[in-house]
């Protein structure tokens, strides 16, 4: 303690500069960030026969990314995120089936807006609560939306859904092919655009405020942060993104049923994110990819075995790897850095 009081002026200047540098450069793209995109493109060339599956993985990445904003950055735990995925999915589905509107890109925008509006309204009411209360309210909201769809199954197609949807070629030029090549690239581009926005938000002062809310909401109130407004904002954005993911789901599957609103869906995306690592942007990529690939392999082998495995993974993750796969990498990195120092 005494040493810092006798530190010289130049040393202090240098310490200042170092500190400033860190913050100034934090948001710059690092080379390692190109990795997931390179992998995604490599998959396109290496596994051309698995493109439909690949699209679903990318859609789940987008869905998990939207949840990371709420759960990883703002620290809000909900059980009804599938509601927004479902709204996006049905916006596109109903537009195609009932209104004969099959232009894909405008469908994405419509889905984002619809999901965003519902996110704004529900968020405004529900984000005043926390803990078990919020879990139950968000869960009940998702189920209510599902039941509403079931009520008017004449419109929604109920649990049998809306099959046989067709969509116009992209920009009127790129038609979808049997193996889903076009759609894979379409989803990849959509994901890249969404990711760019999410990344900017996370590194912005607003994103900083979200982290503050997660770390110590009491302090945030005390320094004058409009906490509720911030939460509703991020919730709306996350809902919109989840809606886009849902819209892509309907477009790539040419089919949508009410099961998109299932609690199962909300739980699945949460598990993916936790396994990958929350609050780390790329946790969504790692978690969704690993989960989907493992599920694809094991559930074909034996669905029971897969369910057991997922349960076991969760238990082990909570006990030994709280920060997910990326967290494990970080810990490993820190461990080796310590070893190198000594």
């Amino acid at each position: 303690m005494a040493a810092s009081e006798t530190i010289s002026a130049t040393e202090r200047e240098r310490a200042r500069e170092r500190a400033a540098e860190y913050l100034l450069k934090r948001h710059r793209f690092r080379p390692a960030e190109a990795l997931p995109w390179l992998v995604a493109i490599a998959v396109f060339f290496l596994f051309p026969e698995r493109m439909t599956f690949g699209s679903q993985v990318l859609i789940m990445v987008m869905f998990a990314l939207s949840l990371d904003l709420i759960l990883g950055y703002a620290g809000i735990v909900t059980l009804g995120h599938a509601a927004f995925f479902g709204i996006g999915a049905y916006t596109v589905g109903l537009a195609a089936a009932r209104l004969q509107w099959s232009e894909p890109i405008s469908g994405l925008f419509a889905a984002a807006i619809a999901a965003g509006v519902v996110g704004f309204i529900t968020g405004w009411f529900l984000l005043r609560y926390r803990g078990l209360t919020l879990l139950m309210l968000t869960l009940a909201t998702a189920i209510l939306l599902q039941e509403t769809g079931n009520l008017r199954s004449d419109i929604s197609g109920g649990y049998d859904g809306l099959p046989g949807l067709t969509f116009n070629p992209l920009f009127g030029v790129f038609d979808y092919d049997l193996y889903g090549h076009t759609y894979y690239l379409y989803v990849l581009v959509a994901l890249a655009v969404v990711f760019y926005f999410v990344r900017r938000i996370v590194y912005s002062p607003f994103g900083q405020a979200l982290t503050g809310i997660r770390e110590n909401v009491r302090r945030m109130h005390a320094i004058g942060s409009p906490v509720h407004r911030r939460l509703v904002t991020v919730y709306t954005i996350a809902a919109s993104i989840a809606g886009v993911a849902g819209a892509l789901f309907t477009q790539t599957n040419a089919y949508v049923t009410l099961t998109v609103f299932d609690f199962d869906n909300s739980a699945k995306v949460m598990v993916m994110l936790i396994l990958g690592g929350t609050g780390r942007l790329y946790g969504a990529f790692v978690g969704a990819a690993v989960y989907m690939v493992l599920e694809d392999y094991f559930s074909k082998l034996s669905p029971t075995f897969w369910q057991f495995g997922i349960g076991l993974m969760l238990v082990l993750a909570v006990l030994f790897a709280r920060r997910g796969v990326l967290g494990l990498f970080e810990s490993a990195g820190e461990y080796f850095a310590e070893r190198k120092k000594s």
Partner: protein
Amino acid sequence: MPQFANIAVSILFDGLAYAMFLFITSVGLSVTMGLMGFVNLAHGAFAMAGGYVVVSLTRSYGVGFVPALIFASILVGVVSIPFERFLYRRLYRSTDLEQVLLTIGLAFMAIAAFTYFYGPIPKSVPLPGWLQGDVNLGFRAFPSYRAFLILLGAALIAVLWYAFERTNIGAKIRAAVDNRRMAESVGINVDRLFTLTFALGSGLAALGGGLAIQLFGLTPSFAVIYLVLFLIVVAVGGLGSLKGTLLAALVLGVFDTAGKYLLADAGGFFIYAVTVAVLLVKPAGFYGRE
């Protein structure tokens, strides 16, 4: 009886039976969550396990239905103790999210294990003669099983109420729910208390699971499908409150039954609409503490 009154009586009767089931299965969850603040989503798995124990005992070992219920409750209650001591205890200071994830993981493992041993096809139980058919009360006949459920529920409520309000242990539990640190500082061994209430709650859940077989059929996914209901009852009633769990079970049970009777398809609506309505106005539930 006039048509309208007949329907009303049916709704009340079935609703009451359903409420008893909800109460028996959820009360343990409410008390353990109120006492330790631990979100246990594996609670439904204990209920499911209890149900399967009853199935095995009655089908493979010829044990009577009621003895099987008693045995299943005790067995599951005892088996739950090592879970609490060796697994749950490590997470008492963890975040809600971690507790949710751990217990959901356990639930998945349980579902998978029971699917492996019992298969996914719904199971039923052979009921003794006196629980089959109807019991005639003069103005109307009522299904015997549901009447049994109501009476059993009422008896359990009386026993639990007495235990909570009039015994030493009950007082200690209430004190610890109210203010754990205070209770510890006056010498109450809260850890041991929690193990006890946890075992009791799991045992009651197993009882509820066994009783549910006749009402809904039993599959391994019972563990998560009905979990949502139990959580709703607990949230709406208020954590740690016997009164609250009962009131919530009654309100939700009757509303859900009414909805299904009167509006068939739309029926599922009501229970969730009521939940949202109650929680918006009283976020801690009927008798919860803010």
